[in-house]
């Protein structure tokens, strides 16, 4: 059985020979990549955004405006889904050869549902960030109060000890 050795380290390690003595003599690390890049033959992008439904060739069933009422749309999609499942059951009883279109419509509804849920994620991320910031502000304020109290306590103790020493 033929085995291959590990690949050798990249040859520019020699440039870092005097790094310990002079950190500036070696080249800087490469800057972060922006835009699209190729990795192992695949194209990737650094801009992580949810591709819209039209990009994937899927018809969008819910109205798209600036602010979508997620709860209402999710509920109406759920009702549509139930109706379509019932329709599929009816078609299977009466005209079994026409199942394909119904199945396609059901999968369309599922794709819309998942796309709606995925588009809630950025909102959730921002809400989490807001929550974390609020917690941090509260903790900092508590620490501030704590320090102030301890300082005043220390001042008071010093004054008392001074008074006792003077009274001695």
């Amino acid at each position, binding site marked *: 059985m033929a085995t291959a050795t590990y690949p050798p380290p990249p040859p520019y390690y020699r440039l870092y020979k005097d790094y310990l003595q002079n950190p500036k003599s070696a080249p800087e690390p490469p800057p972060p990549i922006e835009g699209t890049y190729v990795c192992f033959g695949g194209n990737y992008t650094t801009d992580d955004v949810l591709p819209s439904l039209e990009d994937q060739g899927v018809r969008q069933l819910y109205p798209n405006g*600036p*602010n979508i009422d*997620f*709860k209402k749309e*999710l*509920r109406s999609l*759920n009702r549509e*889904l*139930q109706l379509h*499942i019932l329709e*599929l*059951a009816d078609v*299977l009883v009466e005209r079994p050869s026409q199942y394909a279109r119904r199945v396609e419509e*059901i999968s369309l509804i*599922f794709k819309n*549902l*998942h796309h709606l*849920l995925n588009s*809630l*994620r*950025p*909102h*959730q991320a*921002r*809400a989490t*960030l*807001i929550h974390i*910031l*609020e917690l*941090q*502000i509260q903790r*900092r*304020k508590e*620490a*501030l109060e704590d*320090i*102030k109290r*301890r*300082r005043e306590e*220390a001042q008071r103790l*010093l004054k008392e000890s001074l008074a006792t020493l003077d009274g001695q």
Partner: protein
Amino acid sequence: MDIISQLQEQVNSIAALAFNTFGTLQRDAPPVRLSPSYPEPPPSTTEDPTNFAEQPKLMSAALVKAAKQFDALVAALPPSEGGEEAQLRRIAALQAENDAVGQELQKQLEAAEKELKQVQELFTQAADNCLNLKKPD
């Protein structure tokens, strides 16, 4: 698990229930007479009398229950106040407040450390004085 992941799980389970329902019904349905010109199909054995009549009922009840649970989860979503810009504005305001409180905290911390050093200095002086005043016997 957070609410959106629960919603996604619920959607997937509704899908699984739907195809299990149809698959089970198609697999286990007894043969039925299609037209008067064909002979009556042979009566099949095994499962028929016992629970074939209940299976559609049970499975459809499970499907409807899953759909109702999805609605309950949707109702449990937190209200989405404003939109993206409102959230970004709130984040900027919170960041500014965080910076201000952080500066104040830093100031208090430096003052407290200075006082600590002073007290420590005084303490070493007092201890030295004590040592110097005590005469060795």
